[in-house]
């Protein structure tokens, strides 16, 4: 009756279920707020990078490239252990929200940019020729079409964001992964601990991933003249 999955280890886990519940709630809270931040940043910088104003485009480029090409772990570690040396001590939960929001904001910015670019230029030109201003054309013609294309990869980003909250465990973030590490390394009942934690992450991510697949199916069903281009674009996004 021994081994990593022995029965008494499962019993210990269910006795201490509040530890996991606490971690789960923290992960959920950080995920939701970080996702909102990522959406705001992503949409803003996504539109920036397709705008005609060179400065905005450059700012967006720098943001996206810098964030996408450094590991999230280093960004988190910098916020946690670097900033205090400059006199800024942020609470751990805020670090999680900022780091994840900014990190996935950069990816969402690229998704949004690709979505806007996938709409045939002729549509914007046609709208402008009909007397729409640039922003009106965006608002009524381009963005409503882009949304359909952007939704599946955006949802994938949400899934990734949730999974990435686990990096908070290295800075004592109190998230689900941290609580699991803490609990299971004290009593060494790691077997059930990581299985249950994996299932909890699955419970958060699977519905989103399923939704993403549904969005994808719906988007590909729309019969349009340029549907061929569209399909290509978002399939690339899904891979990226």
């Amino acid at each position, binding site marked *: 009756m*021994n081994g990593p999955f022995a029965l008494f280890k*499962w019993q210990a886990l269910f006795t201490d279920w509040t530890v996991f519940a606490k971690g789960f709630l923290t992960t959920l809270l950080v995920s939701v707020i970080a996702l909102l931040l990522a959406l705001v940043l992503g949409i803003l910088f996504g539109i920036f990078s397709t705008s005609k104003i060179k400065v905005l485009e450059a700012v967006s480029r720098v943001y996206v490239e810098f964030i996408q090409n450094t590991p999230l772990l280093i960004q988190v570690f910098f916020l946690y252990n670097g900033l205090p040396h400059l006199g800024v001590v942020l609470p751990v939960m805020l670090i999680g929200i900022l780091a994840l929001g900014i990190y996935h904001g950069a990816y969402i910015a690229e998704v949004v940019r690709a979505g806007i670019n996938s709409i045939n230029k002729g549509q914007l030109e046609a709208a402008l020729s009909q007397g729409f201003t640039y922003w009106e054309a965006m608002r009524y013609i381009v963005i409503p079409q882009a949304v359909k294309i952007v939704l599946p990869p955006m949802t994938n980003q949400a899934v990734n964001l949730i999974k990435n909250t686990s990096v908070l465990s290295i800075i004592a973030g109190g998230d689900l992964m941290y609580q699991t590490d803490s609990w299971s390394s004290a009593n060494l009942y790691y077997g059930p601990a990581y299985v249950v934690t994996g299932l909890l992450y*699955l419970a958060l991510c699977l519905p989103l991933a399923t939704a993403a697949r549904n969005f994808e199916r719906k988007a590909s069903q729309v019969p349009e003249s340029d549907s061929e281009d569209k399909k290509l674009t978002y399939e690339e996004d899904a891979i990226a």
Partner: protein
Amino acid sequence: MKKLITISALILTLVLTLTLAGCSSKTSSASDEIQKIKDRGTLKVGVKVDVPKFGYKDPATGKISGFEIDIAKAIAKKILGDENKVEFQAVTAKTRGPLLDSGEIDMVAATFTITEERKKSYNFSDSYFTDGVGLLVKKASGFKSFKDLDGKTIGVAQSATTKKALQAEADKQGLKIKFSEFASYPEIKTALTSGRVDCFSVDGAILAGYLDDNTTILSDKFSPQEYGIASKKTNTALAKAINDTITELRNSGDLQKLVEKWGLK
């Protein structure tokens, strides 16, 4: 929805299989296990590589040395007749349990505190070293004793028994303290330097390895922690060989010599 049910069912099956496999872990006869080590010709030992004086890998030479390394060599000598027939593998608090379970290593000598809870999963030898929980703080912080840490955050290692020990002491003295747990000692030290935690607390002898010009160890020491060598629960013959070696080392006075050699206490 149907898919969801199918997936859930699959996961449930997987978990159950794992659990059952865990329960029915076959108990091959104990002497076979020792024979396996003899056939292999090396004793595989999990040790710390980031704890100066206990198990530390010198970054310059790549050599691992320390108090626990010497003990492991003594056990290798007992079982295999040659103290060099030992293979060291770096373990952390998180990896040492799984590595034992999977049979990747035969035993763990890695500042492993003996607890009742852990004894349910592994065989522990008698204690070969006893140490109290110590407190390392920045000199600049001006903390003089445990009482000064009221309301502060203390950095501890995951898997260490420090948290429990300090919490008990804090309750006794009526203090409120918070904990941040980290996976490794260097991470706690970094967090202390950056001011994330106000105090770095682990077992005193380990702490001494992290002392530098800017930090000091407070005189308070709490709840003795007993280190034991862990081996697989089913492998009772190995556990006995380990324990015999520890007893011999203690009776011959060699254990005390090793303690002095490494400047512990």
